[in-house]
């Protein structure tokens, strides 16, 4: 099995670390993984994206132009990546601040209002875990237990007490996500 994912949003939204957690989760379940960020000169702001591939086989190209799954967290990202989801693939978006919405009919489209939820519930720090939860609900590519193991690996020790919060966030995301088409 190979899953090719793009995650894209504003610089501050934790896009890269969401990708990292996914990659670590893959690592935990013995898969081949690749995590390929867009990198730029901006210290802050701007749009960032990351390509994550989890596979049971050696990964050839870390760079792709079509994805099984796209997670888009702002308008420019939607515009850039909607067309790049493979037919039959999955698009997950957080609609916060959107004025144009996905239109494709040949892919599965899900909406998750994690940003709004996070601001309303004082959970900005785990926002990316909420979204990840949404993803795992609709594309169960990694076991939650492996996600938590991965988190443990990628977080500095002093943050390990937050693991519980993160697990909760995943469950919230699983609830929050809605199919649109």
């Amino acid at each position, binding site marked *: 099995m190979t899953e090719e994912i793009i995650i894209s949003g504003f610089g501050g939204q934790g896009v890269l670390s969401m990708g*990292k957690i996914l*990659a*670590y989760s893959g*690592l935990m379940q013995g898969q*081949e*993984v*690749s*995590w*390929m*960020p867009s*990198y*730029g*000169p901006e210290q802050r702001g701007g749009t960032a994206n990351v390509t994550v591939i989890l596979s049971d086989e050696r*990964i*050839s*190209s*870390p*760079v*792709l*132009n079509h994805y099984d799954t796209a997670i888009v967290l702002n308008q420019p990202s939607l515009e850039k990546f909607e067309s790049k989801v493979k037919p039959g693939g999955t698009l997950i978006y957080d609609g916060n601040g959107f004025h144009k919405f996905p239109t494709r009919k040949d892919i599965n489209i899900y909406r998750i209002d994690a940003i709004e939820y996070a601001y309303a519930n004082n959970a900005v720090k785990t926002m990316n875990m909420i979204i990840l939860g949404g993803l795992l609900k609709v594309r169960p590519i990694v076991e939650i237990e492996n996600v938590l193991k991965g988190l443990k*690996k*990628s977080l500095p020790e002093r943050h390990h007490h937050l693991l519980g919060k993160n697990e909760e966030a995943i469950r919230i995301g699983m609830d929050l996500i809605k199919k649109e088409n």
Partner: protein
Amino acid sequence: MSNSQKQHKEEVRLMKGNEAIAHAAIRCGCDGYFGYPITPQSEILETLVELEPWKTTGMVVLQAESETASINMVYGAAGCGKKAMTSSSSPGVSLMQEGISYMVGAELPGVIVNVMRGGPGLGTIQPSQADYFQTVKGGGHGDYKMITLAPASVQEMADFTVLAFDLAFKYRNPTMVLADGIIGQMMEKVVLPPFQPRWTEEEIRKNTPWATLGKQKNSKPNVITSLELRSEEMEKINLRLQSRYREMEKNEVRYEEIMCEDAEYIIVAFGTTARVSQKAVELARAEGIKAGLLRPITLFPYPSEILMSYTSRIKGILTVEMSAGQMVEDVKLSVCGKVPVEFYGRMGGIVPSPNEVLDALKEKLIK
């Protein structure tokens, strides 16, 4: 399974290519790193200072005032028989050309990492492979060559750092690790090489008897120099260097063949474009096209012979690079007109996609 994986059981880690270089350097007993920040490779220095190897192995890590200073620090350290390295990206490596030529002239080992970005000039910070010529033909003045290793994965970033030091000392010549922004910035699984202690002074005296560690009693002073005003003598030095390059050509050619046995079309690509091209080969095979990939691992010495050996049975070669076409000249020189050699490239920091490569293969060779 890579060499380092065989030698020891160590956990699999996830890290960036740049980070892998830093870890591998510390582990292989590197004595000194001297570098200057530039995107997309600053993580090498940043990881090193984070790891503080001076507190463990004693490795010196210094942020220099410029790339010019960096390479000359490597020269000084290497002159003492120390394992020294620097890293930079394209514009910074251009500034090192005099220093690299000096290292070759003074027969000094050392490792230079170039995580290439798009040029010319300031260009872009996105990935590129357009410093191929600079690296393998000679960006500095005078006749010289460097063994050039082109990693295509994070694992190879680690492994080739170690290998680069071995080869540098084997041939008393700088070795280049030629990566690009993608390989530097991406995370993959990696098993780090085992820890090797740094050479002791006794070992240095044994391994590099030419090193300037202080003149030993009853022996002549050691002198590190690239100067020789007597032309006859200078020519001898040149000839010695050249014969060393012939040795490298004999011993150090490295490449990877992927689905080449029955291939009718061969794609030649290194580094990131090799990864992309591998996927293109997979796509081609899925369509019934007998494609294969030759991935040169050493760009100098170049795997010319294996390429020549294909010519009797293949229909054509497509060279894929993130450049206007540089390595393609070596492909052409390798096959000497015997099969058509075509080129597909992207520039400006754009990474070609697997589909593009497949399309190029069809369009340019299969038609």
